[in-house]
């Protein structure tokens, strides 16, 4: 038991220490850099896998497993380094490990200058990500998020592409604003819960015994919603995302869009919704419209993109809208779907960023209209890209499908008309996704490209690219075919979304829930027909 909790601690300490080693000791030889960084990237995933299998057998305390508490010097304010996992954080913890390793492998094989510093920043980011999803203390939850965010800025600023300096500063200011607003919300929550602890469990117990007043609940929720919303690129606070991702180096974009961005949604699901249901119902209608803005408005903007990386960036903003729609329903199915979609989207968007860079290396342009005919020269890349596009559209067989499906079911119960724009969004994403595939891989290459290819032979995916793409792909497929490996665990911790809301919205039969919500919704579908 102690062993597993220690693993949780090591899951972020090892990457951070590896990162500091690379940062502190200059000019190590190549094999050593490789060894140290691979250790830092692999260990978190191994720990995540191990903890996944230990999860169900581990004793549960207050809804968390592997719970452990350490003092870092702020215990007078009730701040402890409290680590633990529950059913909602488990998939995201796993996601962080998986995408981290994929990004790490990609970075190792990349041709970045000053690679050692690059890898060390990526390792620190990886450590921060693991810490974020392992923290039960909301102070450290925030702290680790920032720890992961700062290297992102630096990486964009130094190793980014076109317009990197502007993008880095814009992203820094925007995200700091979001982070500070959410920090205010978190402090206000701590403040109004008797000022004894930043520990989520303690706060939850306190609020359960003494509910917050309605105004307080509304204002805290508002702060958290907009603070986290900025971090998740909620419409209309999204403008940093496409520009930032377009400029970011691939590994940083993979980790940020894939994992770090989910922090805000995760915070809403773990903190804001369960603790502040009154605030949630108050802000729900507005959030619904903003989320639809993400889906429809950003969807249309995505369609207009010709730049591949911008398109992927916008599409990631758009899919966040579905996660928000899942939250708006305030229902176990919708929220569970949002968590699955976060997992699936994290993998698919990371895969798309990776493949876009691979495409760029072979065509020397991001302008999709300049490309064409790549599939005959790089068939594996083409197949991977098509599959990744399918995954991001949400076709069955990929993890995203289950998420979007559950969200749609839940929306039908919530307000049926919302399904119309939401489904239109799927059509939109199919249009831009498939059109991109057509532009890049089929048809005739432009003359410039022909010239380029005459001089430089096109090679298919290199070993590094293939390895990291396969990792992500495996995750997508695995959860796509066996969603229960996560859905059962997620379902265990969705109780706040089942109890008080069920009465308000619909009659959800609690008897069928133990099978997991995916099964439950099938049965409900059949029943309603």
């Amino acid at each position, binding site marked *: 038991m102690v062993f597993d909790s220690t693993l949780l601690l090591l899951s972020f300490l090892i990457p951070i220490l590896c990162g500091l080693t690379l940062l502190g000791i200059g000019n190590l030889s190549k094999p050593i850099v490789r060894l140290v960084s691979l250790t830092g990237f692999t260990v978190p995933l191994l720990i995540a896998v191990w903890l996944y299998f230990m999860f169900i057998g581990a004793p549960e305390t207050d809804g968390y497993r592997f719970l452990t508490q350490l003092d*870092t*010097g*702020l*215990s*007078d*304010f009730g701040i402890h380094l409290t680590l633990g996992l529950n059913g909602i954080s488990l998939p995201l913890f796993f996601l962080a490990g998986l995408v981290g390793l994929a990004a790490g492998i990609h970075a190792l094989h990349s041709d970045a200058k000053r690679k050692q510093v690059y890898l060390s920043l990526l390792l620190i980011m990886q450590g921060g990500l693991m810490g974020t999803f392992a923290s039960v203390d909301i102070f450290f939850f*925030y*702290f680790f998020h*920032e*720890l992961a965010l*700062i290297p992102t*800025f*630096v990486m964009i*600023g*130094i190793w980014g592409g076109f317009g*990197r*300096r502007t993008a*880095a*500063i814009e992203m*820094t*200011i925007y995200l*700091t*604003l979001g982070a*500070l*607003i959410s*920090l*205010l919300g978190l*402090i*206000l929550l701590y*403040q109004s819960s008797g*000022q004894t602890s930043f520990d989520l469990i303690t706060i939850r117990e306190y609020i359960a015994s003494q509910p917050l007043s309605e105004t307080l609940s509304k204002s805290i929720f508002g702060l958290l919603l907009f603070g986290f919303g900025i971090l998740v690129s909620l419409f209309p606070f999204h403008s940093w995302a496409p520009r930032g991702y377009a400029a970011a180096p691939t590994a940083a974009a993979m980790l940020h869009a894939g994992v770090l961005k989910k922090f805000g949604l995760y915070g809403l699901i773990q903190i804001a919704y369960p603790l502040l249901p009154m605030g949630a119902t108050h802000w729900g209608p507005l959030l619904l419209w903003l989320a639809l803005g993400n889906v429809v408005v950003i969807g249309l903007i995505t369609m207009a993109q010709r730049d591949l990386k911008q398109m992927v960036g916008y599409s990631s903003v758009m899919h966040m809208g579905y996660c928000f729609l899942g939250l708006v329903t305030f229902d176990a199915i919708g929220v569970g779907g949002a968590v699955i979609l976060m997992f699936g989207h994290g993998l698919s968007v990371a895969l798309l960023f990776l493949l876009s860079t691979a495409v760029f290396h072979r065509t020397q342009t991001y302008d999709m209209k300049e490309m064409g005919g790549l599939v005959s020269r790089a068939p594996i890349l083409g197949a991977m890209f098509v599959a990744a596009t399918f995954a991001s559209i949400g076709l069955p067989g990929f993890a995203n499908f289950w998420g979007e499906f559950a969200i749609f079911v839940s929306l039908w119960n919530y307000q049926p008309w919302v399904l119309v724009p939401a489904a239109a969004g799927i059509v939109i994403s199919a249009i831009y996704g498939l059109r991109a595939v057509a532009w890049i891989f089929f048809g005739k290459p432009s003359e410039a490209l022909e010239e380029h290819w005459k001089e430089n032979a096109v090679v298919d995916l290199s070993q590094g690219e293939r390895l990291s793409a396969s990792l992500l792909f495996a995750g997508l497929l695995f959860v796509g075919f066996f969603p229960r490996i996560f859905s059962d665990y997620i379902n265990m911790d969705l109780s706040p979304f089942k109890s008080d809301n069920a009465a308000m919205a619909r009659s959800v039969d609690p008897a069928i829930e133990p099978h997991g919500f995916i099964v439950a919704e099938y049965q409900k579908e059949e029943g309603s027909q």
Partner: protein
Amino acid sequence: MNLSAFRDIASTNNWGLLLPEIYLVALALVLLVFEMLFRREDLALIIRLAIWGQVLLLGLMVLSYFEGFPSKTGVAFAGTLRQGPVEEIMRLFFVVGSILTSYLATIYLKKNDLPRTEFLAITLIITVGMMVLVQSNQFVVFFVALETVTIGFYVLVAYCRKSPFSLEAGLKYLVLGALSSAILLFGIVLLYGAGGNPELPGRVADPMNFDALAGFIAANQSNPLVLAGVIMVLSGVAFKVGAVPFQIWIPDVYHGAPTPVAAFLAVSSKAAGIFVLLTLVTGPFASLDSVLVPLLSTIAVLTILFGNLTALPQRNVKRLMGLSGIAHAGYLLVGIVAAMTVDWAVYAVIFYLVTYLLASYGVFGVMTRLSGDEDADQELDHYEDLGQRQPFLAGVLTIGLGSLAGIPPLGGFIGKLLIFLAAFQAGLYTLLAVSVVGVVLSIYYYFGWIREAVFRVWRCPTGESASGSKDAAPIEVTPMDSVTLGGLSALSVGIGFFPTLAELLMKLPG
């Protein structure tokens, strides 16, 4: 003549309490004597003596705490000095500040070939002034200590005689400093006169004494003379802090003053002012909170906004540090307003000051190293490509600026967090909102600076570095620099990960 007062003072004279101050004054005098005795070639010895002498003092002070950190607040010298745990921390703070200033000064003075002994001696005397200032419990001691500090700074600001910027800064500081001293003195006299007025209720025999004055002010809260006196005293102190509307001297003076002096002004002088303000509003003026809370809140809001907004377009880094320092004074003022209702906010302010010291001296250290022939001429452009030319200094600069901006996991973040927590507890929501706006604004200029230093890997079309011939010269970093600046950065990071200091502070009895 009333001799009983003298007898009183003599009986409570406990000179042992002032040993660190006496040591520093003696050190300053010894330096001056050595200057006369030694030849110019032996100057290095004097510098070593000054710095290691102070380090020794620091060591001795820390050593004495093994017998137990002072836990009780008591008065000595017939109630003119007050000593307790908080004052003790501030004394340590000033000694550390003095060591770092002396260290930066040796780099600066060597570069500019200016006399060194006088600079170091004045630094020591100013430090003693600040140490007495934070312990003062009576307006005469208070004023004399404050003037010692101010007059010392008049000299230091204008120290670089050959630079017109330095002279101009010195003159500006002299005129405005004298004005503020006059306002302060006027305020003290008004309080003294009102406090001794036999017709007013609660008249006290010794209206200069803070404790006696507290009772008198509580009894005469709406007396116009008292109010005018209080506001004038606070204005005089606000000048040292650089709070709006007494901030106008800051950019010019920081710009012209030698970089180590700017650092000294930014950290130690500001800390002294903030601490004095804290003692005043929680001590003698505490009963006027209905007036002071709105007044100081307004000042805090204006200070934060002024500092951040004016720093946005700055290209000169010395002015940038000055103006952003105004913003930091604003955040500290938020802590002071919170301290009027929340007891532990005092420690939040002190913790913030400590993180500010660590971060600022790191940044000023890099500035001192990089400054060219004309010290006032330090533009953002000079930092271009620092990450390539001198990665160590770029790292120190990044950590220092990140901490000043309040980015986790650096110390500055914890400092801001504690101030925010205190403000939340005191219910100062408007101030919090303004602080957040300020922090976000500050990201722009702090990261703009980091961008110049780290992100800009500019290559001219011809393939040469764009930074020109002057900057292309290698920047030397001595082992001592690595230890000092690296240590400051390490502390900034360490205090962010393990803010044990905050816990230690909280455990102190108030």
